[in-house]
């Protein structure tokens, strides 16, 4: 286990240092995957499928807020569908508008979830979203998750409709329209998926909130169990048995990913190095504030581990210590703006007039 802990600390330190560069890079990769998956699933328009376009769109998403990425993805979807049939694109726009106006606008910060659910559905691991949301968000996350599920099934139906009704005459427009709406309203699988995802979010959230050891780990396990059981029951009820193995593998994969995310704790609004500017009457300040606590953490880990002799105690020793450390860290992080203890931040001061501040 030891190398893993050391590895985690290395990653943390690395992330802390290069936060400014890593975030856009990650966003770029995520956006690239998003646009590629969309192109793979409903890539009807060859012009948008071209590499330069995808590259520029991803680059744009990398340096703008995540809401822009969601908007771009929606526009790309609509344009792809528009090139096959304009009536289908109108339907998509209307349904997206309804979803936004009635639901998604209440959770503006979780907009990326609406996008992530359909993408992960294609990659066969949508189950990680509800578990992750239960872990890091509030039950409000049910709203964007549900919207994401609707979008995924809507695109499925559109795909089917587009292959079946390629060239239609004006009289068939109404028929096509009723076909899409019918399949959306009577889609039991979609409704059951939303219910199960909501259950997973609620169960994970409430277990995570409980005050006992390993609450986070147990919450993840409970979420995964709810997921597997829920979809098993739904598969038997709806009589679709060909997807059970994929579903179970996907759930296990999702659980592993969520556990990895939890292990590295990078998602909890983890703040890296802060660079701020301000001024008073005399100086301009360019301050680089480096969070202190994580730098000492690996050493503490190493000491504890080596001090223990027997195998069983030392393993639990690490875990307990690990949790303590995390808690301590979270406290510091949330209060770091306000706490008056000296040295919660190292201030490296480079002032214009005097240079007696500590240069880095």
């Amino acid at each position: 286990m030891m190398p893993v802990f050391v590895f985690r600390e290395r990653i943390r330190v690395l992330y802390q240092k290069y936060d400014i560069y890593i975030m856009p890079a990650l966003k770029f990769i995520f956006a690239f995957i998003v646009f590629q998956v969309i192109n793979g699933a409903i890539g009807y328009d060859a012009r948008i499928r071209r590499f330069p376009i995808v590259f520029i769109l991803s680059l744009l998403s990398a340096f703008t807020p995540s809401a822009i990425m969601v908007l771009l993805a929606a526009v790309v979807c609509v344009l792809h569908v528009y090139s096959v049939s304009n009536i289908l694109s109108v339907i998509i726009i209307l349904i997206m508008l309804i979803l936004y106006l009635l639901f998604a606008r209440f959770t503006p910060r979780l907009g990326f979830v609406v996008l992530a659910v359909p993408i992960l559905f294609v990659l066969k691991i949508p189950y990680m979203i509800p578990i992750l949301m239960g872990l890091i968000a509030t039950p409000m996350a049910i709203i964007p998750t549900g919207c994401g599920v609707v979008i995924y099934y809507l695109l499925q139906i559109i795909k089917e409709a587009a292959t079946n009704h390629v060239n239609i005459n004006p009289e068939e427009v109404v028929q096509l329209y009723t076909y899409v709406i019918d399949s959306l309203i009577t889609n039991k699988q979609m409704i059951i998926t939303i219910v199960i995802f909501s259950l997973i979010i609620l169960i994970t959230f409430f277990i995570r909130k409980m005050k006992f050891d390993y609450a986070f780990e147990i919450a993840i396990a409970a979420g995964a169990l709810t997921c597997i059981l829920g979809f098993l029951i739904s598969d038997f009820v709806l009589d679709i048995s060909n997807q059970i193995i994929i579903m179970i593998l996907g759930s296990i994969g999702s659980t592993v990913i969520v556990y990895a995310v939890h292990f590295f704790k990078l998602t909890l609004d983890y703040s890296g190095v802060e660079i701020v500017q301000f001024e008073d009457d005399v100086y301009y300040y360019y301050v680089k504030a480096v969070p202190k606590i994580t730098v000492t953490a690996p050493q503490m880990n190493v000491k504890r581990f080596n001090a223990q002799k027997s195998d069983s105690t030392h393993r639990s020793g690490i875990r307990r210590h690990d949790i303590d450390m995390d808690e301590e860290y979270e406290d510091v992080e949330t209060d770091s703006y306000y706490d008056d203890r000296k040295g919660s931040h190292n201030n490296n001061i480079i002032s214009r007039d005097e240079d007696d501040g500590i240069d880095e």
Partner: protein
Amino acid sequence: MLNNDKIRIMTKLAIYESKDGKEDIKLSKYYKTDYVRYQVLKSIVAATFGYAAILLMFFFYKAEYIISQAVVLDYKLIGTYILGVYIMIVTVYGLSSGIGYSIKYDASRKKLAKYFKLLKHLNKIYKEETPEQ
């Protein structure tokens, strides 16, 4: 001379202002009632448009039936239904967004209280500094 305590406080304030503070400070410019009322109004308008879009879709869905029965339809009853559902939706959205946004406002006030405390502290340091000069 650089005053390290002052810089520490100013750094914390600046970090807060560039992150969560941005929204909190924007909220602090409203009174609670004004803010909540404004948000409720916005959600009611959004709900109205959403409902209109649903109605539009429903109209197309049933277009064939509606056109063939256009003469014999009981428009008064349909109108009452549409209005009734609309009033229900507006009530639900208005109430829930009223509750939700007032909770949000209170939470941001709590965070701002800490911010103001630090500001006061900073002000005190300034006052201590000035007579020396």
